[in-house]
Every structure is written in structure tokens, then in C-alpha cells.
């Protein structure tokens, strides 16, 4: 069974640009989550999508947005990049049922210069 896949692995952008990160969930999983892990910090919740709808949003500014497609894959967009957006962005998927664990991809390392 293929795991959660994220692309690209690394992304280098300049301050003010936009970044698009992509995620394909495990087959059969309907929920997709995005987390940010900045250097030295834990995982901070960004967004949760289930069945194409945004279910919850973390304490991040509106320039962080995303969507989930009919095939349950997801995209995270970060507009007007700032230096502090440099982090590892992790996508996870789950079955969408109560108490089903999240399964993570290996992340996209975003560097803003």
C-alpha cells in the first residue's frame, strides 16, 4: 500500500512569492491534514479537509490556504511568503472516522530567502 506522498521534497522561494505544496493521501483515506514544523518546534496544525470540505483551521493567517480535490488529494498554498514561513510542511491522511490515526508523508521542506 502506497503511503502519503508529498511534492516537491524541497522548495526554495523568495520573500513575497507564492508556494504550492501537494499531497496525495493513502488510497481510501478521505481526510487530509496539513501541519507546519518550524525549526526546533513541534507540529502546528494548519488545515483539515474531509470529503472536499475545510473542517478546521489552525491559528495561521489567511495567506495560508488550501483545497481538497475530488480524488482526495490536496494542495496547500502560501501567498506573500515571509522568511518565518521556512519550515517542514507535513501532510497526513486518515480514514475520516473518529479515532483513526493520522498517517504522515515525509514532508516538503520550504525555504524562503
Amino acid at each position, binding site marked *: 500500500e502506497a503511503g502519503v506522498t508529498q511534492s516537491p521534497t524541497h522548495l526554495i522561494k523568495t520573500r513575497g512569492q507564492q508556494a504550492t505544496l501537494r499531497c496525495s493521501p493513502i488510497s481510501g483515506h478521505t481526510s487530509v491534514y496539513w*501541519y507546519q514544523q518550524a525549526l526546533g518546534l*513541534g507540529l*502546528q496544525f494548519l488545515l*483539515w479537509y474531509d470529503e472536499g470540505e475545510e473542517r*478546521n483551521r489552525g491559528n495561521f493567517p489567511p495567506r495560508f490556504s488550501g483545497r481538497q480535490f475530488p480524488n482526495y488529494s490536496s494542495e496547500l498554498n502560501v501567498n506573500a511568503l515571509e522568511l518565518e514561513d521556512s519550515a517542514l510542511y507535513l501532510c497526513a491522511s486518515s480514514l475520516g472516522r*473518529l*479515532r483513526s*490515526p*493520522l498517517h504522515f508523508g515525509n514532508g516538503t521542506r520550504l525555504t524562503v530567502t
Partner: protein
Amino acid sequence: DQQVKQNSPSLSVQEGRISILNCDYTNSMFDYFLWYKKYPAEGPTFLISISSIKDKNEDGRFTVFLNKSAKHLSLHIVPSQPGDSAVYFCAASEEGNKLVFGAGTILRVKS
């Protein structure tokens, strides 16, 4: 406001001995708790979970204990192996809502 806290940034244990990783939480509505392991350059890997109706769950060398009155959970690894060296995150959720993660504990198992 940190709802899930891992107060020990790191832990060093001898191979073969027990590793005990601790986690405290503040939200009494949390009803599902998980532990994840993370190696460098990889995403977190699910290890073990426990729901609030239980106080212990075992899976091989890994056992999670939940003390609801103290709002405390712990992960025991017995016996510890060098391959267990990683960052361990505890996480909690409320009613199927988003997972809230602790800051992680670096475990080093010395051979």
C-alpha cells in the same frame, strides 16, 4: 496556549533498559491519545494509541498508560533498542477533531 506538553526535551537510555516518555495535557475534553516516532528527514510514524475509556494499551515492546485524573500519559518501551532513537511526539484530540501535538522528546538509546 500549549494544550499538550512534553517537558523533557531529551532522554538517554542504555540499550535493553526501559525508556519512559511522558506527556501532560490540559484539555479535559481530549478523548483520544497517540504516540508518534519521527526520524530525521521522514514524516512522523504512528506508534500506538489509547482512548480515554482505557488506562493501558500494549503493542509489542510499546505500552501507553493514561492517567485521566492527572491528565498524564506515558509511553514505555521495553527493551529499548538503538533503532528506537528518534523524536517521539505525543498527540491528543477531542471528539475526532484535529490532533494537537506536543513539542517532542528526543530519545537516544546507547548501545
